[in-house]
């Protein structure tokens, strides 16, 4: 019989009410959930709150988690769902044409200039296009999954992706010309 993974052991301990295991699980996956939520929200404060909510939801749903499956993508999905809920609450998905917070998003200092430039271009997209790009390219969602999570037809997702790529191509070209 296959040996249970470290995560499966951790999950079993948490289900039994082990606080030490709970702390280790939260410690191990906090940044995973935070990064997933940040990619959607681009707002540190909102992301901190959403991560808290997401990890709570993870802990509450552990009884339904299938231990044979990897934990990381499951937590990522929950964090993304919480982040999208937050956006919907703020009606940002339909009304904003700029990143949700007034301050410019912060990027990883270790990222290359090119990576930051592309990330900036993505952040500058209108929200409905930005979300599909983020879900598809940064969080590895399939087009069908994006359609499900956003509650829109697959064709709409494909159209938004196509338009977003065209805008990004333009933005990157402009950036290169300016440089």
């Amino acid at each position, binding site marked *: 019989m296959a040996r249970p993974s470290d995560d499966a052991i951790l999950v079993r*301990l948490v289900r*039994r*009410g*082990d*606080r*030490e*295991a*709970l*702390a*280790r699980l*939260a*410690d191990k996956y*906090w*940044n995973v959930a*935070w*990064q997933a939520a*940040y*990619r959607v929200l681009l707002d*540190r404060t909102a*992301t*901190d709150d959403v*991560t*808290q909510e997401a*990890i*709570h939801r993870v*802990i509450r749903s552990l009884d339904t988690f299938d231990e044979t499956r990897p934990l990381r993508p499951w937590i990522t999905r929950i964090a993304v769902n919480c982040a999208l809920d937050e956006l919907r609450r703020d009606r940002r998905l339909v009304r904003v044409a700029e990143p949700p917070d007034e301050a410019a998003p*912060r*990027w*990883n*200092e*270790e*990222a*290359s200039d*090119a*990576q*930051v430039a*592309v*990330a900036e271009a*993505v952040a500058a997209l209108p929200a409905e296009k930005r979300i599909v*790009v983020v879900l598809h*390219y*940064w969080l590895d969602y399939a087009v069908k999954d994006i359609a499900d999570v956003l509650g829109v037809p697959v064709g709409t997702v494909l159209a938004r992706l196509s338009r977003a*790529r065209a805008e*990004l*191509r333009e933005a*990157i070209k402009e950036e290169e010309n300016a440089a």
Partner: protein
Amino acid sequence: MQPNLETLLREARAATPDVAPAAAERGIMNLLAQTEHAARRRRVPLIGGIALATVLVLALAALGAERALQDQAATPSARVVDRTLLCSTQVQGGLRMIEMVATPPVPTRREPLGPVPSSVSMTSGGAETGTWISLQTDRYPDTSPWTGQARYSRQDCRVVNAQVPLAMTGLAGGRAMFQEKQKCEAPRQVLVRIRATFERPSRWVAVSPRLMAARGGRITQGAIAVRTQNGRPLAFATATRTSVQLYAARHCWR
């Protein structure tokens, strides 16, 4: 050859920043406090006793497993962790500065807060995203699963070989009041030495992308000393389980 747009887009995910260590720590503590609170409301006394025993056994097993994993690593465990760091400082309110905070223990406080352990920290630029070095001698009941711990933000500090005496020479101060603060104007980088003596063997472990921590039971003695690279002392704080001392340069202010 220029990579295509899809490749550029996928690679750009690397620009996502990490969570601020203080924010993660606070979130985890909130989570633990809330789950404990919920568990307490459900608990029946007899079952509670059995559950507590189970939790203790499982926690010990988990700790044992963690210890076994740690023992496999190259760095040996010892009761004393001692590291000298070169840390960047941040501008706050137009002034580049560090902030020392010292909290002596509050031994008896009714639940849910419980007794507050001794702690000392040095931050720069705010706890959210700035430079952060701290130690606490014992656990915060109902919030922290860890007993004593020493921590620092990895991205703002790097380990260096430098002499930083753990001494109050040239500084003024003494026994700290509750959450006593000293702010000092500081250069772009400062040398920080953090030393902690644990009850059990401990070692530095990267516990998250932004955080290094040493955890191993309670801390019997801990100290943080801060100097400029020219050797000018800025601050020094010590903590035992019963008292905390804080000393700062004369140009510092409360």
